[in-house]
């Protein structure tokens, strides 16, 4: 008997934390037990049983995502029995699903189920029959696609909305094969308490929920790349991954390890990024001509004119005749450069930012 928190995983001793589940400890140790209804940010649910493992002394395989480790427990994650069980379960799930590949673009976890099927070597169609779930093409909100033909009733969307967002916009109707995810009481999302934060989309493991904004760019063939940055809107400072295809900004994904948001986003950060490559963007400097119109100019001309106006003002009206306003939306470097410029120009502290309005 050890006195420490140690159990045995696949023949090797492993430390665990009080209250840790087999699934979590295995994950920490680099053993990826298959799962479908698991999302690390949500309370363990135990719905899909894809994560079953064999625990010594217990006849039936147990769901590792809900089973807490006890000292000296002996766990095997890959016995022929659990592997068979997982395959059968997955085949059943897939059989209720149309044989249709959806783009991984749909959401952060959209290809989770397909990847698992490949990993376990499960093909669709063994139980081929009617599909469960009914799509909601009539929910014409511009953000979230509800393609419930693909739904496997893992409830991740319902749970993320309740547990993480606290919005309770999604619910469940019916049981078993007839289970249907609903918004409010079977309405469109727009008529529910949904705030279009997109969290349900990002946790859905099948693509049954899709990010309609990023899906606008599905036909672009370039491979998607991501860049970590911070949301441009409010002061919470949520971390996001920008998705680009070539030079095109196609979408935004929440960063699960973002220190301020831990994977959460709101509708602005998630969906309102079109301004970046909008046709209205200013593309060249403009200067006002004799006729009083703003006309395109070279950088050299515009910068000279900008600087000259400032120095002329100082020459004519004294150093305290120039003033600068920095942006509360531009980076620190912009504000720093602006304050240095204004202080150096005038020697006065004639600089402010937009926080006072």
């Amino acid at each position, binding site marked *: 008997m050890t006195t420490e928190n140690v159990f045995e995983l696949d023949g090797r001793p492993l430390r665990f934390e009080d209250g840790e589940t087999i699934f979590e400890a295995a994950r920490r140790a680099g053993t990826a037990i298959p799962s479908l209804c698991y999302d690390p940010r949500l309370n363990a649910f135990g719905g899909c049983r894809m994560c079953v493992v064999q625990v010594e002394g217990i006849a039936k395989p147990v769901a590792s995502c809900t089973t807490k480790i006890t000292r000296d427990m002996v766990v095997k994650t890959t016995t022929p029995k659990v592997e068979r069980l997982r395959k059968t379960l997955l085949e059943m799930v897939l059989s209720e699903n149309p044989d249709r590949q959806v783009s991984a673009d749909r959401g952060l976890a959209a290809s989770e189920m397909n990847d698992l099927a490949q990993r376990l070597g499960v093909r669709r169609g063994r139980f081929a029959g009617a599909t469960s779930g009914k799509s909601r093409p009539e929910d014409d909100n511009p*953000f979230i696609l509800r393609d419930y033909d693909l739904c496997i009733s893992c409830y991740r969307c319902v749970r993320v909305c309740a547990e993480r*967002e*606290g919005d309770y916009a999604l619910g469940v109707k019916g049981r078993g094969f007839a289970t249907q995810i609903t918004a409010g009481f079977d309405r469109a999302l727009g008529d529910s308490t949904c705030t279009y934060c997109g969290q349900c989309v990002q946790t859905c493991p099948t693509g049954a929920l899709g990010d309609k904004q990023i899906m606008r760019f599905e036909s672009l063939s370039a491979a998607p790349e991501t*860049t970590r*940055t*911070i949301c*441009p*809107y*409010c*002061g919470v*400072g949520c971390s996001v991954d920008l998705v*680009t295809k070539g030079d095109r*900004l196609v979408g935004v994904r929440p960063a699960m390890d973002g*220190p*301020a948001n831990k994977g*959460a*986003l709101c509708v602005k950060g998630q969906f309102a*990024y*079109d301004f*970046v490559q*909008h046709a209205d963007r*200013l*593309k*060249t400097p*403009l200067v006002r001509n004799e006729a009083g119109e*703003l006309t395109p100019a070279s*950088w050299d001309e*515009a*910068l000279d004119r*900008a*600087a000259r*106006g*400032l120095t002329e*003002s100082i020459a004519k*009206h004294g150093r305290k005749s120039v003033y*600068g*306003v*920095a*942006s509360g*939306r*531009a*980076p*620190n*470097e912009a*504000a*720093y*450069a*602006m*304050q240095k*410029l204004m*202080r150096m*120009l005038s*020697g006065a*502290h*004639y600089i*402010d930012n*937009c*926080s*006072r*309005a």
Partner: protein
Amino acid sequence: MSNPLEDMELPDVIFCIGTNMTECHPVAATRLKRAMANGAVMVVADPRRIRLAEIADLYLPIRVGSDAALLLAMAHVIEREGLVDEAFIAGRTEGYEAFREHLRPFSPEWAAPICQVPAADIERAALLFGRADKGAIYYTLGITEHITGVGNVQCLGNLALMTGNVGRPGTGINPMRGQNNIQGAGDSGAIPANYPGFQPVVDPKNAAKFERLYGRSFDPEVGLTKVKALELAGRQIHAMIIDGENTVVSDPDAHHCRRALEALDHLVVMDIFLTETAQLADVVLPATSWGETDGTCTNTERRVQRLRAAVPPVGEARPDWWIAAEIAKRAGLAGFDWKDASDVFNELCSVSPIYHGLDWERVAEGRYQWPVPEKGHPGTPRLHEDGFVNGRGQFKLIAYQDPAEVVDDEYPFWLTTGRRLTSYHTHTQTGRSEAIREVLPEERLEVHPEDLQRLGVKDGDAVRMTSRRGDVTLRVKATERSRPGTVFCSFAFSNVPVNLLTGSGYDPITDTAELKVCPVRIEREEAGLPA
């Protein structure tokens, strides 16, 4: 914020005042909802029945601009009931005796008619907060955008000090910053009172330091605020540079603001769009946008994080810092030879005591919250843990003061302004998403159904709304979110420039405009809306 965002899941009593957090800081609000799911109690004071009010355990629909009265009365009850933290007061604060005397007349019965909420509810709010083990206060512009903004914040400070809700997990006085880098703009020195890192310009040591660093001498007195500078436009101020701000739509008293900018000899605007403000400029310089710019920003919990470019800039757009540096060089100034954003940030760190332990590499993962005084320092998620920077916490003797303008027969409605979930600021960014426009097609004035009935106006009808400074026309939306006598709209839509109406007064200390209160008159607009 004095405390980290993480702490928002820890309080046992949450007091939100003047913050529409579920719409303006939605992700922060999810943390409060989780705290509530874990048993925390929430008290909300706001003139509008916002979503937070709906989920609160106790909601006080206070009249706009009556915040100080409520806070004084809560302090009164906490004192009367002996719910103060004696040890904290003795060990960490100053001026409690005078404060206690000061509070005497401010009973809930005194405050009730001012706030227009029952005295019993004020009493309950005070008891809940006073009895909290971990009580946390959250506020936003609903507290500060008043002529008494500073006093309001000090009232919140008093509440936190008297109950010892400072410097511990799940407590604190927590303003939520509205714009992604409004915190960073101040940190970086773009304010008239401080050099970078909040080093006061009036301190000769700082003046000497920056003289050495920048190679020129500086005035020993605080500069002008933007509000004052606009007032002096055409008289003292003749040239201005504005970076990324749509001043003529976002600022109060828009007519005055436009006239001020027009009175300048020279206006330079850097922005990503040709905004209403840029249209007035002599020179417009295209800046790179978010998504195209490398840099850093600082969030509401003082966390310094990296911004990264993911796509090339459109057209010839250049980073703001580069534009400012080029103007400086052409004006004959030295010290602007930065190669890239990391150069600029590293210089900021070198001159700022609160960023001194940071550099470009160190902020790559956003792990640090300032102050980070030296390399190797872990950062400071929670302020005031072992003491206040300026010694002891001071109780401030604040009196209640009416808003600059109050309702009367001519202007019988209180207008209060703010933001909505799907729009941000003047909507120049959010409004360029078709999807957003689909769910928020136009601005509507939110009015209580009883008021609409009295006005003889139906949901969706057009009205003209007039203040002492100007008028706008827009459609109304019947909603019980507004209390009778109070109406709401946002400043997101340039075709409803509600800031033509606002600007009745300014906080004398910060020059923050009273954007949250403006008496108005509302009439049916027979002509309908202009197409």
